[in-house]
Structure formats: structure tokens, C-alpha cells
């Protein structure tokens, strides 16, 4: 158990509303990641963080923003949700480079 909690686990919302997903870790890992998983596309990186207040974009960052004000929390925000952002979102953590990433249980987000 890598001590990762994602919240909420499920969410249904409407187009145009803001949505924030939270990832909380208990083991002080330096690196944190947000991915989305979609049929036919596999796992794609949205944003990641390499320290408090240090973040960078992944391959599908448009429409998403992130924040990391504490080591243990990494927030993913959809400022104005669109139906194309309906997906399963996974948070992952990693202690150091060349070590495996460990994943949370995911958040299933539906945007109607």
C-alpha cells in the first residue's frame, strides 16, 4: 500500500462547471503525477510535480491545471469541464527516479 488516496472516487457534473480532483499521499514521495486513461489511448500524462510548487506539463495538459502547495497533496483542476474530459483519472507517486510509480485507485469523472 503506497498510501495514496484519490477523492472523489466518482463524480458526475455538467459541461462548463469547475472540477477539482485531489490526490493525497502519506509517504512523502517527491514526484506526483496525474494521468487519464481512455479506451484506445491507454494511460496519458496530464501534469506532474517534482516538488512543492514545482509542476510541469504532460502530453495532454490543455484544459487542466494543477497545484501542489504541500508535499502530500496534488490537485488537478478542470476550470470549465468539457465532455471530452470524461475519463478515469489516476494519481501516481514516485520517490526517486529509476524507481516504480505507484498508483491510486482512480477517479471516474463523467461530464454531461
Amino acid at each position, binding site marked *: 500500500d503506497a498510501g495514496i488516496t484519490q477523492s472523489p472516487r466518482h463524480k458526475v457534473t455538467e459541461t462548463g462547471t469547475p472540477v477539482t480532483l485531489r490526490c493525497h499521499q502519506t509517504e512523502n514521495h517527491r*514526484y506526483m503525477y496525474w494521468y487519464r486513461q481512455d479506451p*484506445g*489511448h*491507454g*494511460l*496519458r*500524462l496530464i501534469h*506532474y510535480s*517534482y516538488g512543492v510548487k514545482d509542476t*510541469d506539463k*504532460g502530453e495532454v495538459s490543455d484544459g487542466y491545471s494543477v497545484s501542489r502547495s504541500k508535499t502530500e497533496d496534488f490537485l488537478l483542476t478542470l476550470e470549465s469541464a468539457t465532455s471530452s474530459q470524461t475519463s478515469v483519472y*489516476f494519481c*501516481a507517486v*514516485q520517490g526517486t*527516479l*529509476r*524507481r*516504480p*510509480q*505507484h*498508483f*491510486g*485507485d*482512480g477517479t*471516474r469523472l463523467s461530464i454531461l
Partner: protein
Amino acid sequence: SQELEQSPQSLIVQEGKNLTINCTSSKTLYGLYWYKQKYGEGLIFLMMLQKGGEEKSHEKITAKLDEKKQQSSLHITASQPSHAGIYLCGADMDQGGSEKLVFGKGMKLTVNP
């Protein structure tokens, strides 16, 4: 283009059969990570390979990284229904170590009792 190809895309086997999944790249794999995912759940880390020719086993699952470090295989011996799920490979293609892994699209395994 997909940097990391997994094959086959899906597989249905009878319980007790052996099977092999492949993960192939045109670039050198400096770290290769195998994960298993059950429907509706997160990814569970299985094994990590870093050296050419390296082989690791856990229970009935064996993972190998070829000498050229461009292909990895995952072999399951005497499959069981508990092996069913989606298997994903993730790779670090940076010799110095990358913060970002590249993932394959996954291989869906069904094991019929």
C-alpha cells in the same frame, strides 16, 4: 506514433495454459515497469527491469528484458482466473532517468475456468 507497443492487444486463454505478453520499443529501455490492472481499480506494480538480459520472477509470472533493451516479455505459467486483468508496460527511455514514463496501451487477459 506509439513509442511502446504491446502485443497482443487482448488474449483469452483456458485456465492452466501458459502465455506471453510483449512490450516493444524502437528506443532503448533504461527502465521497464510491468503493471496489472483489474477493472475499475488502479494499477498494481508487478516488476521492474533495468539491465539487458535481466529476468525476474514472482510466483507464476516471469518478466524479461532482452539484451538490446528494446523488448520485454511477461510470461505467465499455468494461468489462473486470478491472473485476469489488463497488463501494462511503462518505460523510462532516458539514460539519466526521466520523471516521465511512457506507457503502452495495455493487454487485456481473460482466463476461462
